């Protein structure tokens, strides 16, 4: 499947769910600042990569998938867990991009502040998408190899 952008999924999200994300995002950013000023920049820096709203997003994905399956008269519990797990797998790949973001920022910030933000965001996007694409390619290759092995075994 190609990557697609669709606004249809936004209709599933309730107003309070947007409010929860906004509040969580704001609170975590305030907390990161407070931790940095109380415990020092080294500990504060760790919290810049905190899985801040991941619990809210994963719970949201799980409940949307469950609701969709239950509407069709099926039990959606397992499907909801699988959808949330897929999201977590994506975040795992994205974390490589997040490390690239921090490394690019660290290298460039002493030379140019604007350049640091631009290069960090570009590094994040490039590394995250490359990691996702590479994983997809590797999975496709191993699936093909598995299928061919199955055909050969059946013939033999």
């Amino acid at each position, binding site marked *: 499947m190609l990557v697609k952008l669709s606004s249809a999924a936004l209709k599933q999200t309730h107003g309070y769910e947007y409010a929860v994300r906004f509040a969580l*995002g704001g609170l975590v950013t305030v907390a990161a600042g407070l931790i940095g000023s109380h415990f020092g920049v080294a500990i504060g820096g760790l919290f810049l990569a905190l899985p801040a709203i991941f619990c809210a997003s*994963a719970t949201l994905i*799980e409940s949307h998938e469950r609701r969709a399956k239950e509407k069709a008269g099926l039990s959606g519990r397992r499907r909801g867990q699988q959808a949330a797990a897929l999201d977590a797998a994506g975040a795992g790949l994205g974390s490589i991009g997040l490390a690239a973001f921090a490394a690019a920022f660290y290298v460039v910030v002493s030379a140019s502040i604007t350049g640091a933000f631009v290069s960090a965001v570009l590094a994040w996007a490039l590394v995250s*998408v490359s990691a996702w694409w590479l994983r997809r390619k590797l999975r496709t290759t191993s699936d093909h190899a598995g299928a061919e092995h199955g055909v050969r075994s059946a013939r033999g």
Partner: protein
Amino acid sequence: MTEYILRFIAGGVIVSAFATLGDMLKPKSFAGLLGAAPSVALATLGIAVVQHGPQYAAAASWTMIYGAIALGCYSVAVCHLLMRFRVAALPATILAFAVWLVVAFGLLAGLGGSA
């Protein structure tokens, strides 16, 4: 106080923007990339540069690398809790937070902050 209100609004707006973009993207594994978007980092580093200068922001971004590695371990733990142990999403994401804390602080203790 103004600084914290600014932090709250900037964090809320950036996190919501990435989360909404994630909702619109398919497939789900690709949308998941945005679960590790640098939303808190963009808001916090922007304020840190203005308040304390580039050296302070650089030191924060160095230990952020440890936090990002911890986030990778956290995501794997969440995946396993959901798929192998069939735990629901909310308890899985909360339980796995222990993994994030152990890995992030373990790396900081072992490797230290920026030079």
